[in-house]
């Protein structure tokens, strides 16, 4: 289209918008085509020409500024083979919330694969997905600039070149291998970061936490952020450092919390000290007690009663007050020393029964062996199988077939399969999904056979994760990668 035609078209367009004949405004060549027909026909002919001119002669005008996102980085693991994607999508569809979807993702990562980005992407705030997805979390966060290859060591010099999630993972790794070097980095670079980032960095100190970290953590008692000060206090408490030196008066929170706990004695021959939650008189008291358990540290509370942390935990009367038991378990998880955590876990798991479930609150601080022992115990007893859904930080793909045959799991599953009650069915679906995450490939395949033989429809959607598990080889073949 030449310039005259473009000008003519613009004038005709304006005229048509408001209404009226455009023949006089049309370019000469167009007028010739419109010819000597009647006024309506001339307008229609011009309209047809204009339509084609707009369609073919003019191209969409690109905006001056078009923003491009950086390229989505490649991940360190190969993509899940195409043939398994339908099974994966079925498992993701069945996973009701983000936490359960992350379980699917974790299982796949445990077998050496990552998902296709159009099937699943981690959220910006995601802290639970496998580390391999860190580059995608950073990409989601939209940080500009170039990421360093994950193999490069993090240093004070290249600190700003790392995206936050990649930096977090690099620091966590460093804390496990060279804790002192990581601490120095956090100390050097952390002070210039905003409070939110500072808090996330200090949180990484929990990896490889040792007495050598105490001076740095003590130095944080003057930090600008209350949350940072609180976190540092908890980490110090884990090292056995007393953080709160109350005067023992009415304003001392430790004294106030201690007043909610009754010290007693039990046993005829060998008198033992016991700590029992005092009976509460009002919801307000309940609320206050919860606040105090949340803000006080275990080491200070134990010291108040003249006991060490393991002694205090050993003397606590689990089972007397469910809410108080949950609060003490959370307190141990937040500020208890490693010795207190393992003591509590080992004692309660050895005793079994309902109190063993309080160990679920300690999961983030337990080693892999203790986590597995607890899961096996819950499965074996089968009194509270739903508790497995609350457990955090369990590894994928380790539960063997023997673990399922050793206890009530299979008989209990068989009895629930025929149930018509909706709640029982939902419970069954949850358990099968959890099993899909925990079991090895062989155990997953056998469990599918078992529940189908017991009457479960072979095509049931609740078997989706088990099916994916069974199809995902534990040692990928060359063709899969």
């Amino acid at each position, binding site marked *: 289209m030449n310039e005259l035609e473009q000008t003519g078209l613009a004038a005709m367009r304006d005229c048509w918008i408001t209404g009226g004949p455009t023949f006089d405004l049309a370019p000469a060549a167009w007028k010739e085509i419109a010819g000597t027909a009647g006024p309506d026909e001339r*307008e229609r002919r011009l*309209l047809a020409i204009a339509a084609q001119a707009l369609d073919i002669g003019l191209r969409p005008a*690109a905006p001056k500024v*078009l*923003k491009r996102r950086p390229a989505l980085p490649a991940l360190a693991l190969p993509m899940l083979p195409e043939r398994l994607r339908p099974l994966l999508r079925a498992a993701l569809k069945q996973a009701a919330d983000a936490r359960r979807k992350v379980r699917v993702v974790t299982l796949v990562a445990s077998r050496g694969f990552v998902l296709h980005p159009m099937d699943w992407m981690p959220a910006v705030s995601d802290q639970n997905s496998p580390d391999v997805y860190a580059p995608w979390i950073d990409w989601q966060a939209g940080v500009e600039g170039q990421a360093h290859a994950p193999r490069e060591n993090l240093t004070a010099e290249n600190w700003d070149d790392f995206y936050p999630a990649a930096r977090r993972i690099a620091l966590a790794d460093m804390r496990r291998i060279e804790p002192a070097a990581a601490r120095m980095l956090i100390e050097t670079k952390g002070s210039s970061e905003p409070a939110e980032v500072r808090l996330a960095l200090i949180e990484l100190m929990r990896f490889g936490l040792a007495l050598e970290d105490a001076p740095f953590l003590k130095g944080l008692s003057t930090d600008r952020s209350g949350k940072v000060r609180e976190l540092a206090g908890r980490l110090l408490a884990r090292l056995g450092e007393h953080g709160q030196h109350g005067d023992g008066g009415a304003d001392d929170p430790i004294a106030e919390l201690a007043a909610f706990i009754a010290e007693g004695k039990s046993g005829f021959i060998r008198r033992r000290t016991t700590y029992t939650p005092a009976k509460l008189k009002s919801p307000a008291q309940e609320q206050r007690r919860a606040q105090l358990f949340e803000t006080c540290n275990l080491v200070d509370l134990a010291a108040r009663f003249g006991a060490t942390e393991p002694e205090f935990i050993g003397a606590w009367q689990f089972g007397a007050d469910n809410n108080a038991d949950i609060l003490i378990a959370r307190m141990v998880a937040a500020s208890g020393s490693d010795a207190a955590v393992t003591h509590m876990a080992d004692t309660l798991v050895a005793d079994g029964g309902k109190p063993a479930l309080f160990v679920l609150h300690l999961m983030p601080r337990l080693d892999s062996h203790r986590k597995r022992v607890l899961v096996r115990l819950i499965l074996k007893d089968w009194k509270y199988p739903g508790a497995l859904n609350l457990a955090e930080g369990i590894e994928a793909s380790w539960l063997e077939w023997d673990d399922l045959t050793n206890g009530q799991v299979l008989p209990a599953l068989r009895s629930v399969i025929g149930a018509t009650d909706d709640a029982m069915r939902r419970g069954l679906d949850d358990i099968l999904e959890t099993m899909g995450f925990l079991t090895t490939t062989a155990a997953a395949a056998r469990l599918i056979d078992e529940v189908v033989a017991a009457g479960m429809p072979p095509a049931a959607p609740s078997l989706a994760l088990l099916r994916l598990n069974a199809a995902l080889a534990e040692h990928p073949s060359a063709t899969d990668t």
Partner: protein
Amino acid sequence: MEFDLKTIEALAPDQASLSAASKLTKRSNWPRLEKNEQQALIWGECQGSGSNPYRVVVDTGDHGYKCTCPSRKFPCKHTLALMWIAATAPASFAPIEATPEWVNDWLGRRRKTTSQPAGPAPGAAAKSIDDALQPDEAAVVEDAAAVERREVAQRKRAQETRSAVSAALDELDQWIADQLRLGLSGFVDASSERCRRIAARLVDLKATALAGRIDEIPSRLMALRSEERPDAAIRELGKLVLLAKAWRSEPDDPELKRLVSTSETREQILANPDARQVESHWEVLGEKIETRRDGLVSHSTWLLDLNSVTPKFALLLDYFPASAGRRSNAFAPGDRFNARLVFYPSRAPLRALVAERIGDVTSGAAWPDFGALKDPLAARASQQDGAPWLTDNPLILPPGAISLDDRGTAWWQAADDPHGIALPIAGAVDQTLLGIDLGAAAALWNGARLDLLAAQSRFGRLDLS
């Protein structure tokens, strides 16, 4: 598999369904028959009367079923036929380990009411498999005089239709002139009501296809920004003028008849010796299932010819009433198959029927190298030269990427020409797509917006439809 003919007889809603099912039990009607014994499922694809195949899945455990056909009989003839094949020729089903996604979708949605197979339905005794296998006696041989009478009546009806359509186009012409006189600003604002009124007149005057197209104009305008709508209205109305003129000059042209009044039947297309036939490997680029304003649902499946050196497409298009309920997809995007397609005769052949499915293609995932595609809109320009009334044209875009403008609208832009052409994309795009460089992309361009179907990337094939 747990089917016997008695069960099928009991499940059938009536004798007619059984008789219809018996005609569909031929293996040639079923390009795909598969089973998963572990999950007690059989499924298949049946080439029915539509362009898109019907997908049927049956749970052999509890006789639950699903078919994508719009029939209101439950189970439909396709479901019965699949069960029939399972009962009489179970070896026809290929064992498959992983169930396809459409089967998984159904499994995820279905709610089991009973774990026991359904018992015989009331009235089961009134139906008989044996009767269904009897030849159809209703077909009587017509005498020559009756044939002639029928042909005369047909010619008369065709003449009447032509006169009615001609009158319809006269009314359309006048209506377009009125819109120009009253102003396109007012037309854009009241397009819904005005288009409905003229569409109803066109239906009365047997220009049904054109009426359906005009009914869709308001939604096409509303999909654009307000400042773009007048130009879009000029394009839409101008193309109607061109189509009306073309029909007047060649009222017997099959493409123009199809666009203005009614389409040929499947049988007519298959029997037409002039219809172009292409046997090739085809990839399903994507599907669009849209409910139209006239109460019909259009089901479009876009295919790419994998053996062609230039981008060649095919469109399988079906319409069915929206009241028939939600329709599932007929293919999975990315499916590849070897088939002979018959194209509806037209200047730029696109709409097609599957005449014969020869088998699935499992090798490869990449598209052919179509060479340098410097101007992504060149293909549209050449198609518009021959058929300027077309609204949507399929394109293969060269390597590019998706970017956002300051209003959040997504644009496709060529990779090697960041200051060159950029095409706005219809609707919202998945944010992940903004970080993926597209090797090549297949899309529909309607003159104002790009509708992405699929793309190639370093993450493999991306389904964008």
